[in-house]
């Protein structure tokens, strides 16, 4: 469980054990996360855009108890804000990696119904 990108049990606890709510939250996250991850992929070198999208992902991933992705986003945001292309490049790749893992976990959780039926 510790190696999972998002701690869904903890998130469910925070939501008072409401699995339907958890499912809805995951769906909302996935809706936006794919587009934002694409943006991170696309905007290589555009530090202003990377900073903005990293900031949003930092908060959204944090809301999902996905702390590794949130931290990776924070590192990219900081590096982009400093104008540090080389650190931002590394942080961007790390964030892409974390987001891919996170999205895969969340999709699986929805498919397996582990996060509730959403009804």
């Amino acid at each position: 469980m510790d190696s999972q990108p998002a701690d869904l049990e903890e998130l469910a606890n925070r939501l008072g054990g409401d699995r339907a709510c958890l499912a809805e939250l995951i769906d909302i996250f996935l809706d936006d996360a794919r587009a934002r991850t694409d943006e991170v992929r696309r905007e290589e070198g555009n530090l202003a855009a990377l900073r903005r999208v990293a900031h949003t992902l930092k908060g959204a991933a944090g809301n999902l108890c996905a702390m590794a992705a949130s931290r990776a986003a924070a590192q990219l945001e900081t590096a982009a804000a400093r104008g540090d292309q080389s650190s931002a490049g590394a942080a961007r790749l790390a964030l892409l990696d974390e987001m891919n893992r996170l999205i895969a976990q969340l999709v699986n959780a929805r498919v397996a119904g582990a996060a509730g039926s959403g009804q």
Partner: protein
Amino acid sequence: MKVLVVDDDRTTRFLLRRVLVAELGCIVNEASDGVEALDLLAATRYQLVILDVQMPLMDGLETLRALRDAPDFKLLPVVMLTAERNEAIVQQIIGLGVLDYMTKPLVPGRIAERLKRVTRWLQTENMLVPDRVGNGLDDQASLLIVDGSEDFRRFVADTVGAKRAVRQAETGARGFRECLEARPGAVFIGSGLGVLNESLLVRKIRSTSAIHDTYLVAVLDKEEDPAARSAGYDGHVTRTFIAENFLRQLESLSTAEDGPLRDLLTVHPGLRVTLISAAEQVFGMMLSTEVVLRDASPLVPGERVMAAAAAQWQDRFSVELRGCCDVQTGRQMAASLLGIEPSMVGDEDVDEAVCEVFAMIGARLQNTLADKQVTLSFGVPAVARLTGPVGSAADGEILLCFESPGREVQFWLRLSVDPSVPAVDAAAGDAVAGETVATEAAARETPTGEAPCEPAGQKETLAPA
């Protein structure tokens, strides 16, 4: 209550909506940026806006500035939402007069607790202005004085009687009957009451449902220990035959019961005031008089973590809000604020938690004074780790010190962190703000000319904005 949630992240809006609707019964509208928010605000009246700082098109600060510049929205209650720990941004937020600010990521239990407090604050904001306090001591309410001394009863009636009706009872039994029949706003209970003595009278009133919430004031003899007669009472005064002194005590009670400071300090579920010094009265005084306090003095040594915020009020005086707590206390606060186990808390978290609590106190102070048309600027709290002599903060305690060096008096508030309040998730349902009790008063006179000891690291304190 109608609330507008403004954030470009949908998960944040979802979590806030869930708490606001399910737990607080609010009607919620959403906007994804400042432009959309202003559009909605122009068409609908909201009682509260929750506003994210970083958003596309028009960010939260820009939106907030626009609101503060518009006469209709100058006083619109706003809670800011930020993932930033950036001092400059926090300072701007506070400077623009917000009710509170919350940091991301959002932990539902924590935001529920915070928003409950905010809505409670909004519902009772009139109570924050001392002359509108409805604690039984307002001008309309009648008073009952129950005391064996006819002289003292007559003195109270003569002193207060011009302003409000004063009833008298010479025994506890008669006092109890008067309470039931006349339902006075406040009852002053002295001594020499006969068989139904003072403690029995208090117990009887508290256990009678029709009058159990009557505001009860103990009239203490000069040498009497307030602690000995604190149970069941809402406040106390000391027996005097000097009208001015009695009226001043009465005024202090009005201020103390629901005064601004009490609310300022209920910013954290685990924080509880176990000692309120004369500061509450002094604050009441500051709000109503032209007291001139001079420049700030050096920091007072605390144990290891210290945060300080300096405030200036219309250039007429400055107040420094200083606090110190031990690391363990800071750790507990951080765990609670971040919703994690204390063992997971790092030093940086402690610093941020301490700063956040102090910033919240500052923001609330600012809002309280804004109600009185007073402009106040606060510095951003800074943390100094002290290696010098151990100060007065014991384990689990935070000391706040309001200094007025020109008067050579320091006013202390001792806050304790309630160990029974765990990390916020579990605390959300249980922690009750405002159950703080003032148990002791202390205004420490600093001997004239004695310079307070300067701790290491004090230069980190920031100047007022």
